[in-house]
């Protein structure tokens, strides 16, 4: 079927081409079948050549002196696109014509060089059969050659465009512009081709505009239209072609068509290449951003968090916004939000470095002020040009106090359970990297389990043409009406403040300490060894806040670890499920259950070297231990009576 379609296209385009014949019946200044043949081979593969050969023979048979000549001409017409396709493949031609290289290759290799073959073979065939005299051989060759070459230059880009899979929708505004510019092309053609010769090239600026705005998919059809119009004008001896000799008409027409095709294709490719480069850079910066931000803020069950990162539109390079949640020693947590000055890949890379440097100092247990101080000092020592605003806070769940320091960053917002909110206005120093010798200070803020802390970057609150104070008020208003759930709250804030217009990157981080002071405890964690320390931290905080002594807390935590470790090691296969820890405390009786939903692969046996001793340890440290395995899942129930103050009224 493909072969038949190719034959039909080739034959049809040949018929059209012959209508444009200037000299005699068969020599035409524009021979579309060469374009059809080239694209057919590029898209469907070189194996399609018999179709081209058959079609070329069928086209040439009625207009050739004899059948043998038609065979020779058809051979030349098949060989030329075959050679062109092979060469393009070797060079690494891309059919989208999105690079300047592709346009050059199409013009010089496929059109000008390869078509020498068909012109030479065809002209010699006609000369040998005396259809063309020796003196006219050179002229015949040049018309043949330019006709075939123009067929490639004018027709191939349009066909490549049609067969290309990449299909972007036209924006509304572009569509209007396209209609306007199409009308302009028709008008310009009319003026140029019906008027005097001097006005002919006035069409070039219009084609330039189309190539600039619409790239290849605008330039290719426009070029085809203009070339066909010009050729028709030449055939009908209109406008600049009036009262001129055949040779003169041919020379003017070919130079005009060549200029149109060269400049359109090359300009459109240059624009595409530049656009692709900008897009590519945006993609790099954005994926760099995302790879750094997508890490799960793992192993912090003490704090619930939600984050939003929205990169700027494609035309604007992404910036260096970042956020981070850092689990610190003793169950404390670090929260970071920052914004590196500048945009693009450079800013994204600097962001990655700053984020890690800040993380490293934070993990060394430095206070927020000291951490920012050290980051600033490191930037100075490295002679880095990076500059960034940053906010770093450290939250201690045990005392429920937040200690924070701001290096020229926008103020964090504290929201209570009813949506009342206030900014933590203090600024503790200039942006990192701004002044080499800066002493950062810090502030503290009580933050109970009902409070939410909101951190954000300038993209959320800065809007061109609006004073920043009004925008910060708008943020407070949006927060006061936001839903209580952290994800819903983030969505509400983003939707209210940005209403679709993203001028700069936006990072938003919402954090809420989980209250562990109540009489009940509920934890759901992946059954992995790495989640055990955090689970222990949460249970420790719960026990401490319920008045358990340190010895009692120690015993319960060891027993918990045994049950938890068993669930981690025995319950699940390769895919981990959940470990569920539930606790209740009342009248000094603490009940803790550790459950899983897997099937223990082997019941841990008590051996002398300590493996499997977990159950014995549990029984010794707790007052009562019951292990139930019913169906899928095992539940360990542990009870301990403590000397805690009575919790009943």
């Amino acid at each position: 079927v493909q072969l038949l379609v190719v034959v039909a296209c080739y034959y049809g385009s040949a018929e059209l081409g012959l209508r444009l014949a200037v000299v005699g019946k068969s020599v035409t200044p524009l021979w579309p079948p060469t374009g059809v043949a080239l694209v057919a081979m590029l898209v469907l593969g070189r194996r399609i050549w018999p179709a081209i050969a058959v079609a070329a023979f069928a086209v040439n048979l009625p207009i050739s002196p004899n059948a043998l000549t038609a065979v020779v001409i058809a051979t030349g017409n098949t060989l030329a696109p075959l050679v062109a396709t092979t060469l393009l493949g070797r060079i690494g031609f891309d059919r989208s014509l999105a690079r300047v290289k592709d346009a050059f290759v199409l013009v010089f290799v496929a059109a000008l060089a390869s078509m020498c073959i068909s012109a030479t073979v065809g002209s010699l065939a006609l000369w040998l059969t005396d259809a063309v005299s020796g003196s006219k051989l050179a002229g015949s060759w040049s018309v043949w050659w330019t006709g075939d070459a123009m067929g490639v230059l004018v027709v191939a880009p349009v066909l490549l465009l049609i067969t290309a899979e990449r299909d972007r929708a036209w924006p509304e505004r572009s569509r209007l512009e396209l209609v306007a510019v199409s009308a302009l092309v028709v008008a310009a053609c009319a003026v140029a081709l019906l008027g005097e010769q001097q006005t002919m090239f006035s069409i070039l600026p219009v084609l330039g505009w189309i190539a600039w705005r619409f790239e290849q998919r605008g330039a290719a059809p426009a070029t085809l239209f203009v070339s066909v119009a010009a050729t028709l004008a030449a055939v009908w001896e209109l406008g600049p072609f009036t009262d001129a000799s055949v040779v003169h008409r041919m020379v003017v027409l070919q130079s005009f068509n060549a200029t149109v095709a060269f400049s359109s294709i090359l300009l459109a490719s240059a624009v595409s290449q530049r656009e692709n480069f900008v897009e590519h850079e945006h993609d790099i910066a954005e994926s760099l951003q995302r790879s750094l931000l997508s890490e799960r803020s793992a192993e912090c069950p003490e704090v619930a968090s939600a984050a939003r990162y929205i990169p700027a539109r494609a035309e604007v390079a992404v910036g260096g916004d970042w956020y981070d949640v850092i689990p610190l020693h003793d169950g404390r947590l670090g929260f970071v939000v920052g914004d590196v000055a500048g945009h693009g890949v450079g800013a994204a890379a600097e962001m990655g470095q700053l984020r890690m440097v800040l993380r490293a100092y934070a993990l060394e247990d430095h206070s927020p002020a000291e951490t920012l101080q050290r980051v600033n000092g490191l930037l100075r020592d490295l002679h880095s040009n990076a500059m960034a605003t940053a906010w770093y806070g450290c939250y201690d769940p045990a005392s429920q106090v937040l200690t924070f320091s701001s290096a020229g960053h926008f103020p964090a917002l504290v929201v209570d359970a009813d949506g009342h909110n206030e900014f933590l206005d203090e600024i503790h120093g200039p942006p990192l990297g701004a002044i080499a010798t800066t002493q950062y200070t810090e502030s503290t803020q009580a933050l109970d389990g009902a409070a939410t802390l909101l951190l954000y970057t300038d993209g959320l609150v800065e809007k061109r043409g609006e004073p920043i104070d009004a925008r910060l008020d708008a943020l407070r208003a949006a927060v006061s009406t936001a839903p209580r759930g952290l994800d819903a709250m983030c969505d509400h804030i983003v939707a209210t403040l940005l209403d679709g217009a993203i001028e700069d990157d936006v990072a938003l981080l919402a954090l809420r300490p989980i209250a562990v002071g109540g009489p009940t405890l509920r934890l759901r964690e992946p059954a992995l060894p790495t989640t055990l320390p955090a689970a222990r931290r949460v249970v420790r905080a719960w026990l401490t806040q319920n008045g358990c002594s340190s010895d009692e807390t120690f015993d319960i935590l060891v027993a918990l670890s045994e049950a938890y470790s068993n669930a981690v090691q025995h319950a699940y296969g390769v895919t981990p499920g959940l470990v569920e820890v539930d606790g209740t405390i009342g009248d000094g009786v603490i009940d803790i259950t550790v459950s899983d939903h897997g099937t223990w692969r082997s019941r841990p046996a008590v051996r002398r070297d300590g493996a499997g001793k977990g159950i014995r340890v549990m029984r010794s440290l707790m007052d009562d231990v019951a292990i139930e395995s019913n169906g899928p899942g095992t539940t360990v129930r542990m009870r301990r009576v403590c000397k805690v103050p009575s919790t009943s009224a």
Partner: protein
Amino acid sequence: VPDLCSIDFESRGNVLVARISGEIDISNVDAVAARLAAMFERADHYVVDLSGTTHLDSAGIHLLFTLGERLRTRRQTLHLVVPSDAPIRRVLRLADIGAVVSLSDDVDDIEARAAAERADPAP
């Protein structure tokens, strides 16, 4: 994520002391074992000082048992230092670890014994 525990090594004559501060559980026991094994090559006496260890469960006990057995086959000795009032002593006692390794209140005691042994090598 911060390290759950830190290990400091100190060499005192023919005694190598490893001080473990923090917590040991299934999430870090393999890393702790590897660090101890890498250092336990040259000395005659090895001391694991658990004075600063705040959490120890059967994962850690298994580690200490394995280490004690391995050193014993090489005719080396493992000593544990655990203050008598430390909560982890309860866990160690439950596991009957005294059958494999020796338990002391502080490092000086072990060092004195090791020094005496060097001055008067056992027959």
